[in-house]
């Protein structure tokens, strides 16, 4: 006993000394005495304390979503969404493979761009996070009680799914097309693109109770590149705004050819009008094939359903539903302020930020103050809809969010800075550098009627010298600013995963009490689950073998199996019998051509093993679960394909 305590004490002392060492080192390197000290205090979350906010960061080309605590910048979790994740077995085990199914077959990787937290009455409700994938157009829902991906819906008749947002009551999410395509797809020459390609904009209906998604309708927009979208809110609820670039409809060397027009557009879509049109029998069904994948937390399994046909709407068939607002120079950001009055367009090649007025837009529509048409849809007079311009704000404006106190914050990619300006008079109030080439920024709730204007996170595309070098590839950096005062103050710099295109933040208090600790074993409806060790068994069906296995600290049942033959397909269905918080067990089998299983308490996961060689092969627990974790192991005997070894299984000599 005494020895144990001594060792424990040494361990603690060791940790302490280590952390002391780190502290002195970092304070030595800290740049500015008092300033640095106060910044450190502001982001210091004492050991054992919780952060004030959850920050959800998109992983871009990692295909995943990462969860950070703010203001500490501590990484809490990576949630696999569109990419396989060997760590958790997501997309590898038999239960989650179906999540990555598409009309193109199994796609193991995705490019996750934007995300949006569900809202009720324009305020964050913290029930789900919705996100989307650029390469194979898909949208996804993550459940914030389990922090797991529970639904993925493919968007057919689209490409480069980019403009993405949810409406303020989570009625719809919109998924726009960035790479226009023939609609429906067909074999044709590329240089006949202009006028023939389309940029379908898909509206996905969200079930208010379950969060379940289904495609409601697709508006077949002209073949521009639809970039970013944000919903109207409060006064402008019922409208969706999205930026377009390449209104030139160039199909080659876009960096030059799509940058010719002095102005591109922000498109305003009255989705309520189109919804009504469709509800009254409007629209036309178009052949399409798309996958709908749903994860069931009772069955602990995903199912993938192939759906057919989508409702399409020709926009000119719904007069008064769509208007184009001229906006300078290939706009990217399209952001609506908390009141719903201002629509901020960030022309990424412009040297100004353009702010449109929703009320002026309505007036211009009423007065038919049009300057022309785009494929039969009115283009509004720029001067009639303009609310104001932020003059000389910086170079390359990208994205704007709001603090709820009348201020807007815009990132500038080219001049690497974030600029604070006032909505009432478009005056610039402050600017701070970012490191480097900032893309999006995030203020918790900054994309809702009720922002929490305390912190701002800038997400950068280029890292260079910010951290210790790690070879040619550096993780992207993010900077946290305190925006509670008049001037912004840089507090923290931290690396992120993949390429964070976007983030969403929410006060932890809205989410954390709903976070599940375990899955209830008595609610486990997995087809191959066992509820206790007496139900464990092995069944053979031809060359398929199903092992109904359980794990609990610190053994598998059964842990000795004989009678398996070369050429068998052995399915290990492993149930974690624990009902204790944070006690997962892992499962790995030598020679399995797949990832491990990581099974949460009360859950069941399945690993497929196809033994190729005879012998006696070990399996073991991969997650350090207990003092006797190392002992958590077992053996499977594999006999020749033609052998007569009887199928048997046991734990401690008892079967």
């Amino acid at each position, binding site marked *: *006993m005494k020895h144990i305590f001594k060792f424990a004490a040494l361990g603690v002392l060791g940790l302490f000394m280590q952390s002391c060492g780190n502290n002195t080192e970092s304070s030595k390197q800290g740049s500015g005495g008092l300033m640095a000290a106060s910044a450190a205090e502001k982001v210091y979350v004492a050991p054992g304390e919780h952060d004030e906010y959850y920050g959800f960061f998109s992983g871009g080309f990692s295909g995943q979503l990462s969860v950070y605590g703010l203001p500490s910048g501590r990484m809490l979790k990576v949630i696999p969404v569109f990419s396989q994740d060997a760590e958790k077995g997501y997309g590898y085990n038999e239960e989650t493979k179906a999540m990555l199914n598409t009309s193109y077959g199994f796609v193991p990787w995705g490019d996750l761009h934007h995300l949006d937290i569900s809202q009720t009455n324009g305020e964050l409700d913290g029930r789900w996070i919705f996100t989307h994938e650029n390469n194979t157009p898909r949208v996804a829902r993550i459940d914030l009680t389990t922090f797991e991906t529970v639904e993925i819906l493919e968007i057919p008749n689209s490409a480069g799914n980019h403009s993405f947002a949810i409406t303020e009551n989570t009625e719809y999410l919109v998924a726009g097309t960035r790479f226009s395509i023939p609609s429906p797809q067909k074999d044709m020459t590329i240089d006949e693109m202009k006028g023939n390609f389309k940029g379908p904009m898909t509206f996905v209906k969200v079930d208010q109770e379950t969060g379940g998604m289904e495609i409601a309708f697709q508006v077949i927009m002209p073949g521009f590149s639809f970039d970013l979208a944000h919903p109207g809110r409060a006064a402008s609820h019922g409208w969706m705004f999205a930026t377009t670039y390449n209104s030139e409809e160039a199909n080659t060397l876009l960096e030059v050819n799509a940058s010719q027009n002095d102005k591109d557009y922000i498109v305003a879509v009255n989705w309520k009008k189109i919804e009504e049109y469709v509800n009254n029998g409007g629209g036309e069904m178009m052949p399409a094939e798309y996958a709908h994948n749903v994860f069931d937390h009772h069955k602990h399994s995903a199912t993938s359903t192939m759906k057919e046909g989508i409702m399409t709407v020709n926009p000119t068939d719904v007069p008064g539903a769509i208007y184009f607002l001229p906006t300078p120079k290939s706009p990217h950001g399209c952001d609506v302020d908390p009141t719903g009055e201002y629509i901020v367009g960030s022309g990424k090649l412009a040297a100004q930020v353009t702010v449109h007025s929703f009320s002026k837009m309505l007036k211009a529509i009423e007065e038919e103050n049009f300057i022309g048409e785009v494929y039969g849809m009115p283009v509004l007079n720029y001067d009639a809809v303009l609310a104001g311009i932020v003059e000389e704000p910086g170079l390359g404006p990208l994205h704007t969010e709001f603090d709820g106190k009348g201020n807007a914050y815009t990132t500038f990619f080219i001049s690497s800075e974030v600029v604070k300006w006032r909505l009432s008079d478009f005056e610039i109030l402050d600017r701070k550098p970012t490191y480097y080439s900032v893309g999006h920024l995030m203020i918790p709730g900054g994309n809702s009627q009720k922002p929490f204007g305390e912190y701002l996170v800038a997400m950068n595309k280029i890292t260079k010298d910010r951290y210790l070098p790690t070879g040619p590839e550096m993780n992207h950096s993010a900077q946290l600013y305190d925006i509670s005062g008049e001037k912004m103050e840089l507090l923290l710099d931290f690396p992120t995963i993949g390429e964070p295109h976007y983030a969403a933040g929410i006060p932890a208090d809205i989410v954390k009490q709903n976070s599940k600790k375990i899955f209830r074993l008595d609610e486990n409806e997995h087809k191959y689950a066992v509820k206790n060790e007496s139900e464990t068994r092995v069944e053979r069906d031809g060359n398929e073998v199903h092992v109904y296995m359980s794990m609990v600290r610190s053994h598998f049942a059964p842990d000795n199996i004989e009678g398996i033959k070369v050429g068998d397909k052995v399915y290990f269905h492993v149930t974690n019998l624990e009902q204790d918080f944070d006690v997962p067990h892992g499962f790995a089998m030598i020679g399995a051509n797949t990832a491990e299983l990581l099974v949460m308490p009360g859950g069941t996961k399945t690993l497929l093993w196809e033994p190729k060689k005879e012998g006696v092969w070990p399996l073991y627990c991969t997650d350090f679960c207990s003092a*006797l974790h190392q002992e958590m192991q077992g053996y499977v005997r594999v006999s020749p394909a033609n052998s007569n070894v009887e199928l048997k299984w046991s734990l401690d000599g008892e079967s």
Partner: protein
Amino acid sequence: MKKSGILMTVGSLLLLGLFIFPLWNIQLGAPQYPDPLGMNIYIFGIEGEEEFDIQNIDGVNKYIGMKKIPKPEEMWEFEVFPLVIGGMAALGVLVGILGFFGILGPNWFLAWFILMSILGLLGMYDFNNWLLDYGTDLDPNAVIKLTDEEGNPLNYKPPLWGTDQILNFEAKSYPRTGAYLLFLGMFLTLIAFFTGRRVEKS
């Protein structure tokens, strides 16, 4: 005698709280259990403070060879205790009512109090015996076998009343609502005796 009869009756009735509230509570906290595992001990059985606490206490204790927390049918106490408490409450109420009408004197109240105290002490003694058995009658095949400085097997008995360190666990054993109602009830019956005797003397 009216006032003391009422006190006696009310005091006895408070015993019935034991059918609703736990008598005792033992909490086991450890670094890896920041939310302690807890068991509520009722006169009719032991329940987890949280739904799966008993299962998790059993799981943790398995390593040092402790037996599982008994189910109600596995201990005679959980059958007898409710009968004793119910019987004593009924007896107390009867004595109180008879006292109220002046049929029985306050010495009966004292007699009830003494009987209840003896039964209570016996109960505590029995409870302590169970704790001792639970903490010392260990599975010889336990994977962790620890000894004290003299080489005797370590004693994992939780305290009867108080806080104790058992390996990495801090065990807290304290009375709960049911016990407090019992104490209050018994105290009231003692008051009933004294007020009754004062009335009798004057």
